[in-house]
Each structure stands twice: as structure tokens, then as C-alpha cells.
């Protein structure tokens, strides 16, 4: 028997970056092959060149990025010599693509059915009536309920998971030989992610499609990959079958990445029983009313009688899917959003009952670390000004506040000279350290961290988690840690509260919650964590 021809083969591909980039090549000497019906996961951190590999395969590299050498073959056909018209023929027909952002990847002013039917139209296939019929059958093939209704909907009327299914339907419309999935589940909730991964896997088995799956998440790799290729700074460091890469990695970089993935098994608990209670929240309630009339039908109960307390030095995890109300609780506790009812007590202060005027001097007691390290620092101010601003508004002299900013930067692992630099000069992880220093500048008793490590690469994430743990032990902070990531919660939190539709459905010691979850929803969440069986 002769060897079958790979669906995709990338041969010694090198992509050049524009002159001002921090390295010369987006991809260097990359060789990959995917066989029919096989899923190859390309794994790497941000900037590893994994998405560039995908864009090169469909001939849509961004301006300034060019193929310098090497080749890409699709079922033996040389892609790099194609004309623009030939590329249009290959895209969609031979290669289907699903992108990361379900919220922005569909045209907001075009009905779903028209966007799917356009795939047929672009390739001059079928007549309009047949296109409509195929569109409906594709929508039911990706398990969307009520295909007729969804076909007529606009993208904003669908949830993230539904939109991603529409993207998959579109990508598979012409039964391509190769499906490229570029972080297709990264923006989705775990339970939705599990369903979408299963869908992609089933369709691949049914149709024998080869899948190039790009991800940063080893949990997802464990769920879906046959083979894995690990990229670091545009260079392939290791490639092999999934079990080999996950359990017997050879390259130190792969080992480091795997070691940084938080385990679902929590560490032994710390002793906290004697510690005083730093924050006590009782029956916190917040309802968002819709605009316009009739008001009632548009109301969303974002927090419904939420109660918890956190001791000095303790971390309470608040986990749940998007829309569960966990961020609302965080904002209400800080009084960035005014709660409708309930009480908040921080130390001996009835924080929830203070007037705005009384609140101002007390704000320092509770501080926040935000999710997005790029959007949460003012680009026009130096790091020193950013950190010192809070203490100065509380009456500290500017020179003292700046001195303290220097010490804080040192404490969060940055150089003191960072005070005079601007946020854009720092990486995501460094900016998150600056965000933590800014919060600590107020000498808070309580820290609220809202998805504070979710935007970071795993290796950076591990470092920030270590920093938070160290600072907590040193300063006795009580931390409310809001996250969608159960792995992170398992490693960092002493107790975990699970939120669903504005209510805490279960709250327990972390080890106990992970070992024997009581609530059905908690069990469902835990079951959906990718890679739980293969990686632990």
C-alpha cells in the first residue's frame, strides 16, 4: 500500500514580519502534515505564530506579512502559486475556517441564512431555493434548535455558542477537505465549549475532514487532538501523538507549558479558622431593568440574595458562566454599581450603608484588579502616576506616594525604574502586575480580582497566581477571586462559590467541592472542564 497523500502539508514555511516588528520571522522553517480525518492541534502562547500558520493556509496573511520561502500543499496542490481567483475558489470549497471571536466574526447587518447561503453563492453552486434548503439542513446538522427561526435571525440575537455553531455550519457547507479552527472555543463558556468541541469531532468522523485546530489551551488539546505541534516564537519545538506530548514531552518548553497548566486537584487547605472576618456580604441583590416599556419583562436578576464572608488571608472563588452575575456581585461589593438591597460589612464599617460622601475615605478598604491588562491602564499616564493617584486623592503627598509606588513595583516583581515609563512599554503579564500594585497602593483589606488572569498565557498566568498567593500571605488580604476557569479556582481558592442565574447554588471548601460536588449544576460545570480525564 502506498502512503496516502496528506490533506495539508506545510513544507519549511518561513513568513517574514514587517521591519519594525520585534522579530524577523512570524514563522521559521515550519513543516506540518495532516492526514484525512486527522486532527492536528497547533499549540502555543500569544505571538507563537500559530494564527499566522492558519492565515497563510487560506492566503489571507495581514498586510506586511509575506511568505519568504517554503511551500503549502493542499491535497498535493501547490497553494502559494495560486492567483487571487484560484484562491477564492479554494477558500470555502477546499478549506473551511472557524475563527475565535463569535461576537464579531459574523456580519451584524446580514441575516444568518444569507451568510450561510453566501458560501454556495460565492462558488456559483445551487439555485436560491436549494441554497435555502441546504442552509436549514446545515443548521440542524450543527444541532441548532429551531433552524427556521435561527436562519431568519441576525447575529446579535444569538448567543456566543449559537454563533459559533453558525460559523461551523458555514465552514462545513461545501464539505471541505480541511477545516481550520482558530481558537474556536476560547471565548465560550466551558459547557458550551464542551458541546462545540464534540460537534467538531463528530463532524470530522462523519465526513473524514482533516482538522487544523489552533489553541493555547492544553485542556482542549487533550479533548480533541490526534497529534500535537508545539510552537514557540515561530519555531516548531516538538511534534507528536497527543499522548506522547501530554505525558512524555521531550522539549523543555513543552514541559514548562504543561507544568503551568493548573491542576484540577486542589492543594492542601491552609488553616484559617482563627482569623477575623474581613468582609461579610449578606443578601446582596441587584436587578438590571431593561430600557423602555414594558419594563418588567426585560428585568434581569443579576444578584439574588447573595451572601458570603471572607476571612483575613482567605481567597473565596466566585465561579460561573457568563451572565451568571459573578461580575455584578464583584462590582456591587466595591460599590462601583449600587446594589438594590443587602448589606456589605468590611471590618467594622457598614460599607454598604455609607453615603457617597462617607464612602470616599473608606474606598481604600476594598480594591479591584481588572481583567484586561491593556484597557485598564490609562495610556497617557506614567506607571508611577497610575499607582500614586489613589493615595494622593486620599491625602498622601505626591513625593511620598511616588516613593511608595517604587516600593510596590519592587514588591510585584518589576523594576523601580518602571515608575517613569508608560503602560504600552510593558507586556500583558507586567501590566497585570502594575494593576495589582495600583490596588495595593491603597493598603486594602479586601481585593476583588475579576478574571484577573484570564487574558494571560498559561506560563504568565502561573507567575501572577504565585504573586497573588505570596502577597496575600504577606499582607493578610482577603480576596474575592472571580473566574470562569475552574482549574485556576482549584489552585488559588480556599473556598469556592458557584453562581448560576444570580444565585450561589453551592459554596464549599475547594477540595470538598471538587471531590464531591452536591449541586447538579456544579457537577455539570466540572464535567465540562476540558482535559479532565487525560490531564487531571
Amino acid at each position, binding site marked *: 500500500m502506498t502512503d496516502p497523500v496528506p490533506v495539508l502539508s506545510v513544507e519549511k514555511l518561513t513568513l517574514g514580519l514587517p521591519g519594525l516588528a520585534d522579530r524577523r520571522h512570524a514563522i521559521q522553517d515550519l513543516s506540518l502534515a495532516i492526514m484525512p480525518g486527522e486532527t492536528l492541534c497547533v499549540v502555543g502562547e500569544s505571538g507563537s505564530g500559530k494564527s499566522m500558520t492558519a492565515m497563510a493556509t487560506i492566503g489571507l496573511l495581514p498586510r506586511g506579512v509575506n511568505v519568504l520561502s517554503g511551500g503549502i500543499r493542499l491535497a498535493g496542490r501547490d497553494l502559494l502559486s495560486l492567483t*487571487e481567483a484560484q484562491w477564492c475558489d479554494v477558500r*470555502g470549497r477546499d*478549506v473551511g*475556517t472557524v475563527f475565535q471571536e463569535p461576537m*464579531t*466574526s459574523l*456580519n451584524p*447587518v446580514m441575516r444568518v441564512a444569507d451568510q450561510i447561503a453566501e458560501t454556495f453563492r*460565492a*462558488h456559483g453552486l445551487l439555485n436560491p431555493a436549494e441554497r435555502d434548503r441546504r442552509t436549514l439542513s446545515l443548521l440542524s446538522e450543527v444541532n441548532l434548535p429551531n433552524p427556521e427561526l435561527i436562519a431568519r435571525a441576525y447575529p446579535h440575537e444569538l448567543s456566543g455558542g449559537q454563533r459559533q455553531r453558525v460559523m461551523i455550519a458555514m465552514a462545513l457547507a461545501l464539505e471541505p477537505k480541511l477545516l481550520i479552527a482558530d481558537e474556536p472555543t476560547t471565548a465560550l463558556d466551558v459547557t458550551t465549549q464542551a458541546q462545540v468541541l464534540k460537534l467538531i469531532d463528530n463532524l470530522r468522523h462523519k465526513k473524514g475532514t482533516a482538522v487544523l485546530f489552533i489553541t493555547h489551551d492544553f485542556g482542549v488539546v487533550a479533548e480533541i487532538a490526534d497529534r500535537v505541534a508545539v510552537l514557540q516564537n515561530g519555531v516548531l519545538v516538538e511534534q507528536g501523538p497527543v499522548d506522547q506530548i501530554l505525558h512524555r514531552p521531550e522539549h523543555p518548553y513543552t514541559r514548562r507549558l504543561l507544568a503551568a497548566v493548573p491542576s484540577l486537584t486542589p492543594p492542601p487547605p491552609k488553616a484559617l479558622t482563627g482569623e477575623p472576618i474581613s468582609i461579610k456580604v449578606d443578601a446582596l441583590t441587584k436587578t438590571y431593568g431593561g430600557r423602555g416599556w414594558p419594563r418588567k419583562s426585560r428585568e434581569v436578576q443579576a444578584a439574588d440574595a447573595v451572601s458570603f464572608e471572607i476571612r483575613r488571608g482567605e481567597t473565596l472563588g466566585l465561579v460561573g458562566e457568563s451572565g451568571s452575575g459573578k461580575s455584578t456581585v464583584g462590582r456591587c461589593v466595591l460599590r462601583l454599581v449600587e446594589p438594590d438591597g443587602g448589606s456589605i460589612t468590611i471590618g467594622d464599617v457598614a460599607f454598604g450603608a455609607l453615603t457617597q460622601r462617607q464612602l470616599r475615605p473608606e474606598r481604600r478598604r476594598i480594591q479591584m484588579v481588572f481583567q484586561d491588562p491593556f484597557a485598564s491602564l490609562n495610556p497617557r499616564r506614567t506607571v508611577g502616576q497610575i499607582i500614586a493617584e489613589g493615595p494622593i486623592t486620599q491625602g498622601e503627598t505626591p513625593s511620598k506616594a511616588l516613593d511608595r509606588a517604587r516600593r510596590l513595583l519592587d514588591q510585584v516583581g518589576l523594576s523601580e525604574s518602571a515608575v517613569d515609563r508608560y503602560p504600552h512599554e510593558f507586556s500583558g503579564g507586567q501590566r497585570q502586575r502594575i494593576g495589582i500594585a495600583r490596588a495595593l497602593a491603597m493598603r486594602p483589606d479586601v481585593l476583588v480580582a475579576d478574571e484577573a488572569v484570564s487574558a494571560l498565557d498559561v506560563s504568565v498566568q502561573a507567575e501572577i497566581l504565585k504573586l497573588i498567593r505570596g502577597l496575600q500571605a504577606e499582607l493578610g488580604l482577603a480576596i474575592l477571586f472571580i473566574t470562569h476557569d475552574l482549574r485556576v479556582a482549584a489552585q488559588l481558592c480556599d473556598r469556592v462559590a458557584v453562581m448560576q442565574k444570580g444565585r450561589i447554588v453551592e459554596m464549599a471548601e475547594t477540595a470538598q467541592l471538587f471531590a464531591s460536588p452536591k449541586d447538579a449544576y456544579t457537577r455539570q460545570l466540572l464535567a465540562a472542564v476540558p482535559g479532565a480525564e487525560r490531564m487531571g
Partner: protein
Amino acid sequence: MLRLIATRLLSLAITLMAVSLAIFLILEVLPGDPAAIMLGTAAREDTLAALRLEMGLDRPALVRYLEWVGGILHGDLGTSFTYKLPVSTLVAERLAITVPLSLLAILISTALALPLGVAAAAKRDGPVDKAVLVFSQLGVAVPNFWIGLLFILFFSTYLGWFPAGGFPGWAGGIVPAFKALLLPAVALALPQAAVLTRVTRSATLEVIGADFVRTARAKGVDRSATLRRHVVPNALIPVTTILGLQLSFFFGGAILVENVFNLPGLGRLAYQALAQRDLIVIKDIVLIFAGIVIVVNFLVDIGYALLDPRLRSRS
């Protein structure tokens, strides 16, 4: 969608009431004697008293306001002090020039700006883009009355293709009337077209970078169909905002251009009424201009909802 139109109509009515009240308060209730303003400082006391009586200034302000508004609702705008004619007749004659002039200018402006802006963005930094940049910079820098003067010199005096000014009236047929309006409309349109071109270009560029455009290309849709079906419909949304703001300028800009081309339009009437201190006419014209702006804004809001399904379902 119906509810959106209903709520917008309601706010339109309320805004019009507020505007009419503001105009009335400023012109007739604030300190200063309207009769003295109209007749000037040299007027004799008995002429002043006669005018005050004629204008009904001896009666309470509220009654006068209600009479004014009530009259407007019946199509009665009062009688001009200088022309001794019903203001409604004066305004109707003038609107027959200003409205076609403005509409023509809007048409020319959008017909120029939208294709140019999209073409410039589609081939960024290409020759079209560079030409458009030069055109739009010139257009923004040069005022419309000066363009009007140049046009008269070149097209009317030198080439003799168009009349240098004046208006033959619609009774003499559409072609001569149209010829009289074309140069002023172009003069009015060019500066606005320049602004709109730049806005269209940057809106188009932004949409070209959007994720869903990449999705369309990945489906195999070619460049021009992507532009037509995905980029332009989305780019029109921000362009509509600017166009809405500009529409009011077209009516306001008419005052200058009508004077340059000696067109007896609403703008010229406003100018003459101001020069002659005919408060009765001024009051009505200001309200008409404000009304046009408010109605245009209403139409822009509806246009938004037609362009963007997200707005339709939110309200």
C-alpha cells in the same frame, strides 16, 4: 420598528414645541421693544405705538404665543411688515427654490462622496486614495461662496454655459430652472462632499479590518463582492451620522450661496428680513429652519434603524 417610529415622532413634536417657545421668548419676551427694533431709534412715538398695536404687543405674551402657534398649524404665518404680504406666500415661493437647491446639493454630495470614499479605502495608499486625499483637503479648505464666485467666472462669464445668477422660475420649464440651480448646488455640495468622503473612507477602512470581512473572504467571496455585500452596508452606519449633521448645513449654507448667485430663496429672504429687521418674518423663518433640522434628524434616526438591525430590536 413601529414603536421606534412612534417614540421618535413624539419626541419630534415635543422638540418642535420647545423650539417655537424658545424663539418666541427670545424675540418677543426678553427685554427690548420689538417695535423699536423694527423701526429703529429714529422712529416717532406715535408710529411705534401704532406698530405695537398692529403686532398685538399690548396683549399678554401667552395669548400671543398661542395665536402664533395656532396660526402656523392653520398655515397662517402672519403678515410681513416690510413686504405687506402674508409670510406663508413669501415662504412658499422661496421654498420652491431652496428645497430643490438643497436636495440637489445633497444628491451631488453623496453621489460624489460615497463612491470616492469607498474606492479610496478599497485600494489604500493607491493613486485613487491619494487623489481623494487632495480633493478632500481642498474641499474642506475652500469656502462655498468662493467656489460659487469662481464657478460664475468660469462657467458663466467665460464659457457662458450657465446663467450667472437669478432664477427664471419653474413656470418656464424644468431645464432652465435646473440650469440655474446646478452651479449653486455644486458650490454648496463640494465642501460637504469633501468632509463626507473622508468620513466614508475611514469608516470603510475600519470595516475592512473587521472580523466578519475576514470570515467572508475565508468563505471564498471575492474582493469586490465582499466590499459590496459586507463592507459598504456596515460602513454606511457611521456615514449616516455625519450625513445627518450635514443635511442641516445644506439648508444653512443656502443663505450664503443664494446671495452669491442672487437666487430668491429662503436663505436670501432670511438675509433681507434681517437687514430690514422684519421680526415677523425672522421668527417664522427661524422656526422653519429649526423644523427642517428636526425633521431631518427624525429621518436619520429612522434611516439608522433601517441600516442596523441591532437598533431595531433594542427599542
